[in-house]
């Protein structure tokens, strides 16, 4: 099979619940749930039976209202949280035969540092605000085993230039930067190890429109240049339309619709997607 036809990342039946569940919500059909919440025991089913593939060089968009489980899914993929059940395989890791959710904590760290990059909505989560910007980039390189200061400095400078942070500010701490600049430092950090998979969680939410446009431009440009696969989560359909090749729509922890982005936007099938698309001005 051709390289581009084998999925880079396969996610199978991922479930994530907060709470133990009770007889009512575990035994019966999930009709008892109010949205994704069990009224009897209070368990929240954030991600229910989520399965998808990510192909090389592809941008996969995930849309959905807030509380639909998009960010939880991203956190599970980056090991910020443990999944309740499910499997994930990365082609470049152990020939795609090891379920990465069941690897040891050390191996998970390895995957995080070598295969994945993540940009959080809140730069506080992705950056060390009191360390220098170049130090932030070095952190990921050091974690991946680099012990050469000269090399890390060059790499950091190149990346920060790439994301339009002036060289004379690279030794400054991100806490002195504007939100847009912080977000760009985060992107530079996420890209530092040339990860084949980049996870973007609401990267432009909260930024003003012109900065939004420049960050999106940057992502698009980087994706084309480096041919990385991206999963981008957003509740902004404009962002999804501009970036994503394929889109998944999530509602109450479930994937209700998926397909080519154009198809979803032009001919939405699920009532929620229809509502979402029609609300787009």
């Amino acid at each position, binding site marked *: 099979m051709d390289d581009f036809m084998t999925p880079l990342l396969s996610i199978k039946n991922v479930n994530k619940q907060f709470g133990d569940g009770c007889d009512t919500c575990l035994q019966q059909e999930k009709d008892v749930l109010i949205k994704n919440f069990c009224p009897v025991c209070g368990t929240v089913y954030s991600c229910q039976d989520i399965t998808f593939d990510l192909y090389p060089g592809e941008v996969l968009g995930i849309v959905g209202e807030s509380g639909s489980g998009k960010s939880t899914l991203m956190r599970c993929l980056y090991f910020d949280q443990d999944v309740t059940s499910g499997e994930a395989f990365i082609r470049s890791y152990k020939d795609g035969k090891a379920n990465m959710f069941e690897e040891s904590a*050390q191996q998970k760290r390895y995957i995080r540092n070598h295969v994945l990059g993540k940009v959080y909505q809140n730069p506080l989560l992705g950056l060390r605000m009191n360390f220098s910007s170049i*130090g932030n980039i070095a952190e990921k390189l050091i974690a991946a085993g680099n*012990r*050469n*200061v000269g090399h890390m400095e060059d790499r950091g400078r190149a990346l920060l230039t790439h994301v339009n942070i002036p060289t004379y500010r690279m030794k400054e701490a991100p806490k002195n930067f504007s939100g847009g600049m912080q977000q760009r430092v985060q992107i530079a950090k996420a890209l530092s190890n040339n990860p084949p998979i980049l996870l973007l969680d609401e990267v432009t939410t909260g930024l003003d429109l012109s900065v939004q446009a420049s960050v999106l431009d940057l992502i698009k440009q980087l994706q084309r240049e480096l041919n990385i696969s991206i999963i981008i989560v957003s509740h902004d359909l404009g962002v999804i339309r501009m970036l994503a090749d394929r889109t998944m729509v999530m509602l109450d922890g479930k994937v209700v619709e998926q397909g080519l982005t154009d198809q979803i936007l032009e001919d939405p099938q699920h009532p929620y997607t229809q509502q979402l698309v029609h609300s787009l001005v």
Partner: protein
Amino acid sequence: MSAYNFAFFDEGSKREIRRATLKAIAIPGYQVPFASREMPIARGWGTGGLQLTLSLVGKEDVLKVIDQGSDESVNAVNIKKLVGKTTGIRATEETSEATLIQSRHRIPEIPLSEGQILVLQVPLPEPLRAYESSELVTKKLHGEREYSGAWLMLFEQIMRYGNMSTGADHPVLVHDRYVMAPSPIPRFDNPKMNRSEALILLGAGREKKVYAVPPHTQVVSLAFDDYLFQTESSAGNSCKLCGATDVFMDEFVHEETGETYHQCNDTSYCLSRLNRKVLHQEVPLNG
């Protein structure tokens, strides 16, 4: 001093501290939590080291206490007096003669030998603390041997000052496993820990941790491929009193002339060199 048990503590307390110490020796560089006792001196004034000393001391031991290289500073004298009064053992200033050496900020210049125990007082045992403030997280990082934070802090120093500028407490990797804070000794003393003949114990009373470097254990100071670990250089300086050159020195400014001069930081080392000189040259002591 019949009001106290031998060595101040009751036997149960000493045993508990020794149990933690044994575990620390078994896992070089690993910080073993222990039930730090209330002491007649305040926490942060060497209680960790003192508890180790008191738990280990026997009637045959000879004690030496150093504070910042000096045997005669207030803290060193007080600790010596406390141990002396509660055990009746002899104190010395001669490094080679001591069986138990408690120290703050220095490892003696005279190489330690087999059978000696060096006890270091530690204010902050966690080498990753400046990088990560949560103990729960740093424990996990140690468990997973994830030490990027320690290197990151050195990287930041290089970015800011052009080299690794750790004044003291430069982190070390022990036995290829645990990254350890060597207590605030100068970088000059770090290499003395590597394959040391003597057992090195480190105690943090306030933070309630004990850790150890057993004899002949490999201790490597963290560094980068292109920024190697360097000790403080004393090149070109010699001790004004004894003329020693390759030792850790204090810098003084003469109050009247304003010129700077250097002296050995390790006072007992300096003194023994001076004594030897006097003996060799047979200089009449009374002029």
